[in-house]
């Protein structure tokens, strides 16, 4: 299988901050994603990975060399301007 061959597919790297970074020292983890999924769907999958509290409020920050980009949770991954290999911080 070659997941990235499909033009709708990408791999993103995410980390839940600040607890995970502070207590465990872990950095980004990889996840398969799709350009047509919503950023909220992506958030739910990330929270499932960490078994994190879904009742809390979270925001997404896209890390880029030029600086951070805040992205909203009600658009598709493509509309959010995400690219294969992007790093995403989920901040509680």
């Amino acid at each position, binding site marked *: 299988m*070659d997941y990235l061959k499909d033009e709708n597919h990408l791999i993103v790297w995410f980390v839940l901050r600040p607890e995970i970074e*502070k207590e465990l020292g*872990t950095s980004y*983890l990889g996840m398969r994603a799709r350009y047509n999924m919503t950023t909220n769907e992506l958030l739910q999958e990330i929270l499932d990975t960490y078994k994190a509290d879904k009742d809390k409020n979270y925001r997404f920050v896209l*890390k880029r060399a030029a600086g951070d980009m805040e992205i909203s949770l009600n658009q598709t991954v493509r509309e959010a301007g995400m690219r294969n290999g992007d790093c995403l911080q989920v901040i509680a």
Partner: protein
Amino acid sequence: MAKMGIKEKYHAMTRDLMWEPKDFDMNRVYPLIEKEGIILKNPSRWEDPFRMAYNQYVKIQSEKDGIYHAVRNAFEANDGHAKVVDSRWYEGVKVFANAVQPAEYSAHRLMAYVGRNIPIEAIRFATFNQAIDELRHAQIEIKHYAHMSKEIDGLHAFANTSQNLWFNTVPKSFFDDAMTAGPFEALMAISFSFEYVFTNILFLPFASSAGAVGDENFAAVGKTVQSDESRHMALGMSALKMLLEEDDRNIPIIQGWLDKWYWRAYRMFSVVSTLVDYYPRIRPISWKKAFEMYVEEQVFNGLFKDLRKYGIRLPKHAEDSIKEKEHYSHVTMRILDQFKHANMFRGFQLQPDDYEWLSNEYPLFDEYYAPFFRRNDHNVFANASPGVPAICQVCQIPAEFPDPDNPTKLWTQYSEYNNKTYITCSPGCKHIFEQEPFKYMQIWWPVEAYLNGEFGEDPVAGLFKYIGLSPNEAGEHYSSNEHARWLEYRRHLGLDKKFF
């Protein structure tokens, strides 16, 4: 005719052996010689610091091999494996086995590459000897593991494991990086940054630990290998000075290579810090003290002081490595602990004496790292990562090094190239990436391959098949079958009895 002295004899056997090509352009025979911008005016005056001709080399190496194999035979014949103080030591030996032996073989190829492409006889003799040394090391180490594999897990599919294990991408990337550089850069990478700066810290503290915990076999491996390293270090030093003295225009090129390869080698040696501080139950020295002794004192305060007259300064990120000495082994062990369920060597629950030693040696351990390792006390997989990690685009280690000035904040760096974001673990690796992004964007990224489905649709089973192991060879040491077998072996020999 007067009898020749050692120096004359050496010259007679090593000089005027090559010819200058008459039928082909020099640049076709040696296509890389001018590619790096290095200017050579009179390189024939350069001397191999050891001035060793082949007959002397063979005699000395033969004696060394004889001594090593005698120790190994005695260790094997006398149940040496059962007599170490704690079998978890062998998890560290597995780290060494998997990472260092393929690196030795790669160093063998690298030395042959340097000798082939630099038409200076003295360099050829030195690199030829070193190329054979590296092959000797690789074979001694394989012989060691062949015996150890009867007793310990993780080594039975050695060729497959060393080829495919994610952990091994770290040393492989280092040597492949050097092999795809020009011959002078490769010489600086291996002979200077790797050999001169770091091999003492690789072979001496870990071999001392081997002696302290009772692994005479490994101590002998360390000693016989390190006895060659002193010659390799002298080559690195001598080659560096030759390049600096040949022409002033070489100096900025050399400085750039020192900046790059110091950090490259330093990062690759991160796992050695855990071999010194964590795996041995008895530690003759800490990583921090070894770093102070071998790198700060000998290299930064000694060698680099001498190099100032050429206009050479300390490697660009030397200060960062000094700051990291308080954290290096703990951070690296933390990374290994998170992924011990998918590796060929196991992690282990720290014992009370471990906490005591680490706390005494490292003032920041209790505050920043002990709470992480304490989580293993009740569940050995409490720290298991719920996913696969992003790795540094340069050193290929999971990008989980904290900023040494702020240890609860990761040091991850971001670079943009060709419409993609690349991450690196530190300013040192970021600097290297941004000098040659086209080179580093091409790395084969094991984690991305895993997510991409290259190990099949059952990625866990696929991963273990790919690396030639089974899941019960990974995990935690004290709860493993390997530890149970070692205890039984000791009982069988009566070594479990206490007399005092």
